[in-house]
């Protein structure tokens, strides 16, 4: 067997050391990411995390060498164009930071649309010229109005799941429609012996807040239904009793100092209704 190149050995050792000394390690996909964006992201995360783009086989070797319990569990995420991200923040926090770096990007052609790409009817900034035929070639209805190319009718240029052809990608870029979302896409992460899948990482504070509200509403409904007297439901029970008492007094024509207003209001409403 050929001895691996020295640089590879050094890189693997270095990354293994970084993983060993970090709180969190994530495998992220860099598919579709252009160099410029990658550099921007790296810059925005500088000081927080280290990003290493390397071949999958080397990542796996680094994972093997790293001094972390059960870190080999990350291997399952190493496939395709990936990078290793290490840092000293919690895995969910790392996930949210990386999600935050995602940006819209123009298609280059060859990508698969993950949603319907719609071109709206609108005036473009282009004067009459060769652009017209480019628009028409991809099936857009155009016209010339006031010296500008106008798209006459809204159209779904690429359906969800279809490949964005280079021609369409070019038109989309001209129209400043950026159908791709690119960035470091977390495939899996490791922290403290725990492997986080994308599913568990994608538990967001917003969603948790909504769940908390739902849980509370359910607890309240249950307490109300069980007439379980806790401060959260007692006001509602009181209000209910009050409304019941009001309704009963009205129905019984039982007029007292404390509810005469109810009767007056009722009479006013009736008079208004009759007067209408």
């Amino acid at each position, binding site marked *: 067997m050929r001895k691996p190149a020295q640089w590879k050995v050094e890189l693997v050792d270095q990354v293994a050391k970084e993983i060993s000394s970090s709180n969190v390690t994530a495998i992220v996909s860099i598919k579709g990411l252009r160099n410029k964006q990658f550099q921007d992201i790296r810059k925005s995360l500088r000081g927080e995390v280290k990003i290493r783009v390397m071949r999958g086989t080397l990542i796996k070797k680094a994972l093997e060498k790293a001094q972390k319990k059960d870190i080999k569990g990350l291997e399952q995420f190493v496939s395709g164009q990936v990078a290793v991200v290490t840092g000293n923040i919690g895995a969910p926090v790392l996930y949210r930071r990386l999600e935050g770096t995602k940006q819209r990007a123009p298609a280059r052609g060859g990508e698969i649309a993950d949603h319907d790409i719609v071109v709206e009817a609108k005036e473009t900034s282009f004067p009459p010229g060769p652009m017209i035929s480019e628009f028409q070639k991809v099936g857009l209805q155009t016209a010339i109005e006031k010296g500008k190319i106008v798209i006459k009718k809204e159209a779904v240029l690429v359906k969800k799941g279809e490949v964005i052809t280079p021609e369409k990608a070019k038109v989309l870029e001209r129209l400043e429609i950026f159908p791709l979302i690119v960035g470091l896409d977390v495939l899996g992460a490791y922290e403290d012996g725990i492997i986080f899948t994308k599913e568990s990482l994608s538990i967001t504070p917003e969603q948790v807040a909504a769940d908390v509200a739902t849980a509370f509403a359910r607890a309240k409904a249950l307490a109300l239904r069980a007439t379980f007297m806790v401060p959260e439901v007692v006001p509602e029970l009181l209000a209910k009793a009050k409304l019941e008492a*009001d*309704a009963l007094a*009205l129905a019984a024509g039982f007029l007292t100092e404390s509810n005469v207003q109810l009767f*007056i209001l*009722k009479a006013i409403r009736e008079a*208004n209704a009759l007067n209408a």
Partner: protein
Amino acid sequence: MEYVYGALLLHAAGQEIDEEKLKKVLTEAGVQADEARLKALVSSLKEINIEEVLKNAAAAPVAAAPA
């Protein structure tokens, strides 16, 4: 509700609502007025500002009032 309608009629007519007047109006309408109820309504009304209630009537909905 007869008593209440009678009271509001007097109020709308700019009259002060007392038991005697209310009784007369009710009698004229064919209602045999009950002294206790007359008293209860008149004294209750003394404690509220009818104008205020009328003004607020648009805003304040009535609690599930049975017909």
